[in-house]
């Protein structure tokens, strides 16, 4: 018979629950897990509400609004990763964290790279009316 505790569905994705439920910091109870998810939901809803509030307010310096919304979005993604996807610093999670870091690298290369290249292309392009004249 294996002493290994069987896997518990979506809770604790990637986090190891070693043999017999005797993890070093003690087994998490149902109540604790429930509170964790409720906290995650509350934080996510609060950040969503602040995003919509920031969008409608005139208390914030106008040109800074886009950056503020971006920061709130990144914060909320972090909340989802921690509370719902259970990306943690536990040793068994190292692979997931490294894969995530690589994913973030590729995503930023694609998004910022595209914006950067296309911005320069727009700058260097012959204005449309001149282009039309040349074709004539």
């Amino acid at each position, binding site marked *: 018979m294996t002493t290994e505790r069987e896997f518990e*569905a979506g809770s604790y994705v990637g986090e190891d629950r070693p043999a017999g439920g005797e993890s070093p910091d003690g087994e998490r109870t149902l109540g604790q897990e429930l509170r964790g998810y409720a906290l995650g939901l509350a934080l996510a809803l609060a950040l*969503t509400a602040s995003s919509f509030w920031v969008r409608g307010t005139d208390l914030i310096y106008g040109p800074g609004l886009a950056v503020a919304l971006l920061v709130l979005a990144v914060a*909320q993604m972090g909340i989802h990763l921690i509370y719902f996807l259970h990306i943690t610093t536990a040793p068994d999670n190292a692979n997931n964290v490294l894969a995530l870091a690589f994913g973030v690298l590729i995503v930023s290369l694609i998004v910022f790279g595209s914006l950067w290249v296309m911005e320069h292309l727009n700058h260097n392009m012959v204005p449309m009316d001149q282009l039309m004249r040349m074709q004539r």
Partner: protein
Amino acid sequence: MSTAAAETLSLATGHGAGGPAPKRIIVGYGFWIFLLSDVIMFSTLFAAYAVLFKNTAGGPTAEQLFDLRNTAAETVCLLCSTFTCAMASLAVGERSLKWTQLALLATGLLGLAFITLEVREFASLVARGAGPTRSAFLSSFFTLVGCHGAHVTAGLLWLGTMMAQFYAKGFRVDIRHRFLCFSLFWHALDIIWVAIFSLVYLVGTLPRQLLP
């Protein structure tokens, strides 16, 4: 072997000593890699949207088109469905068929509400002459948001399959692994939606002079 050494070995499972990682860890890791590749695909659509955002070809702009109350309602649906999906995973952990099915049903209904709101929004845009063929901006908008909607629809089909499998086969270990993958998928879709409602809807509808 002393007890301490045995304990160290059992804790070292999956860390190069004490044997391979549990199957659950490996399944989660593999699916996580798939999800990240999916996120990278979405990032190309986001990049296309950001680049084409101002190319409205004389047609309507984001500011004129989008109804933020609708976006807020969609967001609340999806956030709550992510929570009920987490509740389903707790119920699976407790081996309670009744609560699992109830939580999955709630997840599915909230997902369905989200899709309904989105389809209504798309239909009203097309009816106002702002369909995907109107401008490069609208093409990229429909591609990005529609791709997320397609993922949610696929997720709903998967959810129905999971409910049927829990009903017919019970909490077998392979079924629970499938459910682990489903819950990861559903939570990841919520993260994509956070990016969509923040950047496409909230930043996109800012007045032109406030945009970078």
